[in-house]
């Protein structure tokens, strides 16, 4: 049986958290006064974006495979992919994907 669905859920959570942390870090880095502690913390968080980028690639592939298995439309895949780029959105999209998969393909949602 495929582990695609649990893998998707874990990746969505990881991508979501990295995205929120990265976005907060960048806000601190660019909006706060140079030299303040929070600004420096934001600067130090920059490598998060590399981690996010590479995990996001894995997320994209897994989301694609899942949407193929579930025979979802292209816009649905598009939403799943965009969710990994807009901070916070992925938590809502992940819940929607879970509900939808349980409704459409309960056999895939088990595991």
């Amino acid at each position: 049986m495929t582990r695609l669905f649990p893998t998707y859920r874990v990746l969505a959570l990881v991508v979501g958290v990295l995205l929120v942390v990265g976005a907060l870090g960048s806000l601190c880095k660019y909006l706060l006064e140079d030299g303040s502690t929070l600004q420096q913390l934001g600067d130090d968080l920059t490598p998060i974006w590399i981690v996010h980028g590479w995990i996001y690639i894995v997320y994209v592939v897994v989301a694609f495979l899942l949407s193929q298995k579930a025979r979802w439309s292209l816009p649905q895949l598009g939403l799943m992919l965009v969710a990994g780029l807009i901070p916070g959105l992925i938590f809502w999209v992940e819940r929607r994907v879970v509900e939808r998969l349980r409704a459409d393909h309960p056999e895939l949602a088990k595991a």
Partner: protein
Amino acid sequence: MVRWWSVRLWGAHLLALVCVGFAAGMGVWQYDAFQERRAAEQLDLTEKAPVPITAVLGPDDPFPTAGLGRPVEVHGTFLDAGTVLVSDRDGADGEAGRWLVTPLSVGAADQPAVPVVRGWVPADTTIDDVPPPPAGEVDLTGWLQPTEAAEGGDTNPEEGVIPHLRVADLVQLLDGQDLYGAYVVAREPLAVDAAAGVDAATLDQLPAASRFTGLRNILYAIEWWVFAAFALFVWWRHVRDATAEPLVGEPAGEGAPEGAVPSKP
């Protein structure tokens, strides 16, 4: 039957073109940045004839590729309030040491300042031991360097000692003074400093250059190209499925694994 040139697929073609074009372009941009950084690292300008610092960069300019290690002339007034020691600068024979740094306003005292490495002192020197900078206007020549990145926090709580020559850290010491995004390593210590036992600082005393920034650019470039390839792949799948003959026994329109069967939420 849908052909690949059918109007129905034009939207998909256009979207694919935009996505692939954008991702590939971003990849090329990051790759160029990577090449530029590598070129900057290999360039050795330290033996060139000195030029006035204002000819190389302005106070708010990003650090120019043609500026790394370039000898520059600075004329101005030292701002003693910004004097700091920068830790972990090993001397010529590997002995532990520090850099003595004081910002120098370029021109009049209220003009934007550039931090100047006045010289090298042994590691047990504290901020109270260092000689004050000469008063009045001075002329000096030194090598231009970009502000250092903060790698790890300030683990040394000693007063007046910072781990990296980061311009942002000096801004706090100089109330309201604008600073250049660069610093200058004086080629020779000033007469008063030399008399007080301050040695010349050299570029060899810089901590080993971090390859991280260049690495980041190349990682981003590869990432973008992976996305471009992926967009191409999804487009190809979509067109193939949309143009496929409906399978025998399946109602027309449900043969496509994607796009054709929008399931209801």
